[in-house]
């Protein structure tokens, strides 16, 4: 009676220990991978950064429970410059209108309403542009690459490719602005249904390509280990 109960206790424990060991090895591997990514990109964790490495808060709806987010990239901040300048001009415009004599003749009730409409529109433009930048993300996890685009307020595009499906990665940096601020377009050719994933205006494309290369190599090593 005592023996059988002992067996019940001992037998399952052995399996658990093996599982624990496997989990520990997995964690070690992921940590090593993170360290290597940190070496490539550096430590950037601020939520408004164009490149976030191993973010603490960031998450997305389609994420699996076991999936680890390694890198999140947004378009380079300099791409916001055009709408920021336009917004500043729009904010200053009502103050400049005071110097036009005809404007002074407009009754106060109309001018105050006009100014309110003007500032609401300015605010809407700023907000929409910021949202388009903030939610346009390119995510690299330990399993796949994901591109989430919100082109405007009513258009969402989600594309993904497993790391094992990536066939070819190319980048293009063209023009004065892109060369000066080091950002460009990354084309990822895949063997999946979506044959191309494109991420526009990504900062440091060469670093992103290095990370993808590293992850693909790790995948291949893991595959080799599993076969053995």
């Amino acid at each position, binding site marked *: 009676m005592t023996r059988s109960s002992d067996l019940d206790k001992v037998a399952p424990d052995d399996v658990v220990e093996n599982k624990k060991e496997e989990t520990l090895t997995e964690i070690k591997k992921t940590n090593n991978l993170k360290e290597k990514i940190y070496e490539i990109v550096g430590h950037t964790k601020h*939520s408004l950064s164009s490149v976030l490495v191993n*973010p603490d808060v*960031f*998450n997305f709806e389609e994420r699996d429970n076991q999936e680890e987010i390694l890198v999140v990239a947004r378009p380079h901040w300099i791409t916001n410059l055009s709408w920021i300048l336009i917004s500043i001009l729009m904010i200053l415009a009502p103050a400049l209108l005071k110097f036009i004599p005809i404007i002074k003749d407009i009754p106060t009730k109309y001018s105050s*309403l006009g100014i*309110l409409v003007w500032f*609401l529109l300015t605010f809407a433009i700023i907000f929409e542009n910021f*949202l388009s930048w903030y939610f346009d993300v390119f995510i690299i996890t330990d399993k796949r690459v994901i591109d989430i685009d919100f082109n405007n307020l009513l258009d*969402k595009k989600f594309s993904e490719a497993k790391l094992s499906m990536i066939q070819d990665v190319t980048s293009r940096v063209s023009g004065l602005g892109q060369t000066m601020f080091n950002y460009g377009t990354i084309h990822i050719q895949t063997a999946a249904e979506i044959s191309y994933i494109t991420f526009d205006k990504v900062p440091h494309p060469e670093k992103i390509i290095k990370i993808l290369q590293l992850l693909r190599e790790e995948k291949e090593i893991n595959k080799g280990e599993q076969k053995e």
Partner: protein
Amino acid sequence: MINEFGGIFHFLEKFLGIVGSVIYLIFSLVVVKQVNTMSKNVKDKFNGILITISYIHLLGAIVLIFLALTIL
């Protein structure tokens, strides 16, 4: 004749003002809905602030309707 013309002009001015404000209110409702959808899809540190801003924008649109009704 001038009074009649003035009355029509005043009516048109008020009507267009209110229609414009209502269209803006619909737009700001779309913004609120969309910010919520975006925040569900991509979760990050500033999502709460962005949702709050979208509601403040909606409040601005409501104030605009109120002003269009009273001022015009």
